[in-house]
């Protein structure tokens, strides 16, 4: 369903310790927001894109498809900064172009950080990490189960969609909306049915209400953390003084 998830599981840095990847991504994100866009944003964009594509060897095609997805939103944002609405029409806002430029640069840097994290670290690893920092186990379990169900339901939806298309359920906008309503209506009971059957499957394996599994994940190394810290400091330094 999600090419991002696939890359996250198959990339070269999949087994790198969670803390290191998270520290790098979130650290860079905060720097992108906190520092002046020039040159920090450019630097961050370059470093994070390099880390994703060269370091983790994520497929450039998948990366590009994800990187261009938020362009629509960015366009809306940028256009609103550049233009000024007055009673007698629309004109360029003073300093608008400059402001829009910084915003675009900062957003681009942020997106590369997000993509680095999403494409190198499976969501389930992040959730497991969240449990370790004290998010209640019950909530994490719901999230992990949801992660599991997502893929099952997405397959069911695409099959339903194909079945409807085959019977011309997409022939017009009105029919399409109706078909979509039918998908939604049929999917919820099926999802709940799945939940009921999975409960049987889990009970058969001795489930007592707590969902403990053994996950052996690589531990954080001092060296890895220092490396990430060094990259963050260097970026901060260059961003402030260059």
């Amino acid at each position, binding site marked *: 369903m999600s*090419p991002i998830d*696939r890359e996250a599981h198959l990339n070269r840095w999949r087994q790198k310790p969670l803390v290191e990847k998270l520290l790098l991504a979130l650290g860079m994100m905060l720097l992108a927001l906190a520092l002046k866009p020039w040159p920090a944003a450019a630097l961050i964009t370059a470093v994070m894109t390099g880390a994703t594509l060269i370091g983790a060897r994520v*497929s450039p095609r*998948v990366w590009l498809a994800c990187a261009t997805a938020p362009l629509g939103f960015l366009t809306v944002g940028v256009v609103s900064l550049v233009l000024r609405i007055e009673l007698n029409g629309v004109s360029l806002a003073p300093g608008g172009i400059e402001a829009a430029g910084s915003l675009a640069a900062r957003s681009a840097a942020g997106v590369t950080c997000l993509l680095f994290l999403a494409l190198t670290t499976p969501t389930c690893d992040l959730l497991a990490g969240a449990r370790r920092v004290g998010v209640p186990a019950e909530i994490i379990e719901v999230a992990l189960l949801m992660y599991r169900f997502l893929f099952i339901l997405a397959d*069911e939806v695409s*099959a*339903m969609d*194909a*079945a*409807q*298309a*085959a*019977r*011309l*359920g997409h*022939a017009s906008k009105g*029919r399409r909306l109706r*078909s979509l309503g*039918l*998908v939604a*209506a*049929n999917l919820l*009971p*099926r999802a709940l049915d799945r939940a009921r059957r999975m409960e049987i499957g889990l009970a058969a394996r001795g489930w007592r209400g707590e969902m403990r599994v053994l996950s052996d994940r690589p531990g954080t190394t001092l060296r890895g953390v220092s490396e990430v810290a060094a990259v963050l400091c260097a970026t901060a330094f260059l961003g402030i003084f260059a």
Partner: protein
Amino acid sequence: MSALLEARSLTYAYPGGVLALAGLDLSVSRGRKLGILGPNGAGKTTLLLHLNGTLRPASGEIRFDGRTVGYGREALIAWRRRVGLVLQDADDQLFAASVAEDVSFGPLNLGLTDEETRQRVREALAALEIADLADRPTHMLSFGQKKRAAIAGAIAMRPEILLLDEPTAGLDRQGAALLLNELKRLSEAGTTLVFTTHNVDLAWAFADETALFSEGRVIAQGETSDVLSNPSVLAQAQLQPPLLVRLGMVLRDKGLLQGEAGLPRDEAQLLAMVGIGRR
């Protein structure tokens, strides 16, 4: 006979990278029953989704009546009214509250009047022998009944070609036999059938032609009697010949088969050929 529907060097990769079709060629002849066999993941379902335009190949083309098909809105609509699709899991295609209502989904989308639609629904339910279930809610049907309702939904659009993904999977022996009977009647009435299966014995008994899949390609297509009696090509698709073929071949090697050179197509034939006949 010229092909009614034809796939030419199709390639297709699912988002994420798996190459599901890798230069596949297949041709569907008018009025025949074509069985598609191959291991899990060979690309059988993916091909069916190409044959009605649900998926669009990365390269290669589909030809219908000798003309390359288009993927515009109108082209797809025209294509799908002629090619029906029945997916493996009937639950994926039953949406409406009752069987009759569900079967009416396609005809109404064709823009038929209520009267014509009602007529089509009646016919389709009769063809699958589920007229008595017309008002039953779809989620209260048994497995076999759901399968029938799903097929009725497809044939109510009177397609020329019906694509079926593993039509007998999960059905008990009798249910499968009845369903095959109904499909046979549809075929005799002129509908071209294309179906996938894991069951070589079923293909041997039912299909006029057989195509063997392996890793996104058709490695052999031809008359069932030729394709399924060729152990070396079957082995490439990780299949064994049908049991009747295996027995028949050993017997033939030993000179025990009487009559024409062919292999027995069903049990009675096998027995006749070894000179026994049914009691």
